[in-house]
């Protein structure tokens, strides 16, 4: 069964809370130090994006257990301006422009998979997962 926990992102310190939650979950699942650091950094980036560009949003963290494989799933969602061109934000170099979606290619590389659903003017939902090896 999936166990879910979440953090609302409203102030900058909520980014820290999201990191903490991610760290606890990753540790409990048995991820090693390096992967814990990767997962936490990824959460930190997503939460920071929310805080900087959408103002408010939330981070939901779920433990995954599929066919005996365990992993962590993180959903970052907001009702901000949305990303106009999702393909573009996944290109390296985009982060240098600043703005919404900055740093996403880096986040993707830290994790096993990433999925972005975004509608201009309605918000963005980014889902990332990492499996325990």
């Amino acid at each position, binding site marked *: 069964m999936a166990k879910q926990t979440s953090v609302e992102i409203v102030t900058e310190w909520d980014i820290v809370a999201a990191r903490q939650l991610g760290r606890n979950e990753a540790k409990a699942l048995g991820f*090693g130090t*390096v992967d814990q*650091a*990767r997962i936490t*950094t990824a959460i930190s980036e997503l939460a920071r994006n929310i805080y900087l560009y959408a103002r408010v949003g939330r981070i939901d963290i779920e433990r995954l257990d599929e066919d005996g494989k365990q992993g962590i799933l993180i959903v970052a969602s907001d009702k901000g301006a949305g990303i106009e061109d999702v393909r573009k934000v996944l290109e390296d170099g985009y982060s240098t422009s600043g703005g919404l979606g900055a740093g996403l290619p*880096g986040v993707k590389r830290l994790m096993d998979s990433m999925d972005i659903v975004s509608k201009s003017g309605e918000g963005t939902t980014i889902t990332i997962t990492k499996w325990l090896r």
Partner: protein
Amino acid sequence: MEELEREYHKILSDYIKDQNERNLYIGQNFVRQLIRRNVAPEDVVSLHKEAVEEIFPEEIEGLRTAYDFLIEMMVHYGMALREHQSLIQKQAELQIEMNIAANVQKTMLQTTIPTSEQVEIGMVSTPLKTVNGDYVHFIEDDRYVGVAVTDVVGKGVPAALCMSMVKYGLETMRDSGHTPSRVLSVLNRIVEQNVDDSMFISMFYGCYVPRANKFYYGSAGHEPAFLYRAQEDKFYDLEANGILLGIIPTAEYIDNEVVLHKDDMVIVVTDGVTEFRQGDDIDERGVVASLINDVKHLAPQQICEYLYRELEELHEFNLRDDFTVVVIKKR
């Protein structure tokens, strides 16, 4: 990863036992292997931490947190590093594409210098970057020899794409090739209709008609050509009024003409030849004319090559624009 851990453990213990260059060199080779395998910086720190844990089990306690901290820091560092690597790779891919584009352009826009009993022609056209924003097209007909020298305002790939349109426009007007005003006004309409508003083309079109022994020419906002009169041993500007191609659909152009005598020359250039980097106090066209004057007795092709060499040197091998010169010499 386990194999790397074992290997690193050995290299580090060897070094702790004996701090010599041999062990450091082995370490250096190990790093090469890490880079080749694309091992992230945080993993390298982790390798080190684990090796230290095994080698100094008693002393690791206080240090473990310090290493963990470094791992956290390195995750972010690694993110930036990987993005950088990926951008470098992307740049290399773009360069390859540019080279292909330049080759396609070369093949597509190839033009042969006409051979004629009345005039001898030479040309040099060298791009500043990979693709050329200047373009020369010759038309050889039994009634005339035509030459179009163009410069697309706005360089690089968009300019190159534009050129093929100019070429095919010119090719379809063989029958009007001896009337510059007609050539320019038709091309103007083609460019105006087909090209983005931000792109303009300047063109000098000239043709030598043996039967009249005259050189007819017209210009669409192009740098004036030079006329060298052998008998007077003097240079003149071949000015012609006309607006750049692609601005006003109904633009009209004027035909001008000069009679050519033996050893007279018409020298058509783009502004890459006459615009100097140095200040305003230099008579740029004067410098170009005097360089041509130095070698006026040579064949047109040699004159073009000399001019390019000299100007390249004058600009300290750092020309700032595409460079094109065509010399037409009356035999």
